[in-house]
């Protein structure tokens, strides 16, 4: 304690503030402050600002790309939808075309069948007409021959015999026609 007292008395207490030390402390700080502010800190501040700018620029670029991608995507979506609609239309069209073709084919077939039927009917009626004519001739001849044999009279006079046959058949036909209408 006495030692501490003596140091206090000597003016070298730990709480003493020697003016020369204070001045050197102030100057040292100011010089360090000046040197750092002028020589060191502007560099790092600039680098940090540039970094911020670079990062912000990067973010802006990324956002731009993202927007582009989104636009492209929606465009693609629209195109896809369009393509789908088109496909559906084409399918519907094909369906319609198909039924039309089927209808056409069916109509053609029916027409062809009708033509075939008509031709067949014509052929049949022609055949029938010729058959009737030949039958008529043969029946006449047979009847005349038969009648000649029955009456013993030669009836070779073809013209007369033919007339008789014709008359007979005409009678037959008119009778048949009369009975057909009455029936």
């Amino acid at each position, binding site marked *: 304690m006495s030692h501490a007292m003596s140091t206090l008395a000597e003016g070298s207490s730990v709480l003493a503030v020697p003016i020369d030390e204070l001045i050197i402390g102030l100057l040292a700080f100011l010089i360090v402050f000046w040197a750092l502010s002028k020589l*060191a800190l502007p560099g790092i501040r600039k680098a940090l600002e540039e970094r911020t700018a670079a990062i912000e620029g990067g973010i802006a670029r990324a956002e731009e790309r993202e927007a582009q991608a989104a636009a492209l995507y929606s465009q693609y979506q629209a195109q896809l939808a369009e393509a789908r609609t088109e496909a559906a239309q084409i399918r519907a069209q094909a369906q319609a075309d198909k039924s039309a073709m089927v209808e056409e084919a069916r109509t053609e077939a029916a027409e062809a069948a009708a033509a075939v039927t008509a031709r067949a009917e014509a052929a049949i009626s022609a055949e029938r007409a010729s058959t009737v004519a030949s039958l008529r001739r043969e029946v006449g001849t047979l009847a005349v021959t038969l009648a000649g044999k029955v009456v013993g009279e030669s009836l070779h006079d073809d013209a007369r015999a033919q007339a008789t046959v014709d008359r007979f058949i005409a009678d037959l036909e008119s009778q048949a026609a009369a009975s057909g209408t009455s029936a």
Partner: protein
Amino acid sequence: MSASALLALSEGSCHLVPEGCGFPAPNTEIFNFDSVVEFSLFGLEFHITKPLILLLIGALLIVVFFVLAFRKAKIVPRGIQGLGEYGYLFVRDGIARETIGKAGDQFVPLLFTFFFFVWVLNIMSILPFAQFPVTSRFAIPVAFAILVYLVWVPLGVKKQGLVFFKNMTMPPDVPKAMYVLLVPIEILSNFIVRPFTHSVRLFANMFAGHMLLVTFSVATWYLLSPNIVGIIGSGASFVVTVGLTGFELLIQGLQAYVFTLLAAVYINDAVNAH
């Protein structure tokens, strides 16, 4: 050491210590140094002592390191720039912006200098060969605290006008009668005691830390003798010295941070009226 001296030590002698046998506990004299150089300037005597030489070395170290780290700073940090940048961002974001807000950016150089200068001067405490915290010389923290005071008080007047003194001494939402009590207390605490506590806090921490380190270092040497008590006592003191060195390393950073943070808080009082 001769065999007879060793024998004497083992029998309880204390010849390792020059004067008498008592423990040479360190006193405040360990903070006083003889002048290395003395000169007179403008009628003032300058005594350049070891702490002041350490102060100048610390100043030089700081400037050289950060100029090398930051002078050609790149967008992508490399080497010591990364390290220095970590410190810069700590002061800018952790102290200036955190305390003062966006307006804190203009005070970053000042706070940066305070933080790293104080820290380096503190670290001198455990730096081999230096082994003395410059900030345990009271004049140094006082110089720094005076600078802080000279920054924030005029700044407050400049930013807020004379209302600054009203803002600093008359807190709002207080019954009028209380001002009789409050105003003197606020004047005392904000304008008179502030620079004192600001400097004493740093000084006392570094002073006490150095005292502890010296005490246990001396004890390690004092107790050293070739017997069981000597080995245990000296070994324990050595372990404590090493542990305290680590502890001091923490305190040095912490006190530099506290000093700078308080400077920022004072500047904030001036910049942002409340």
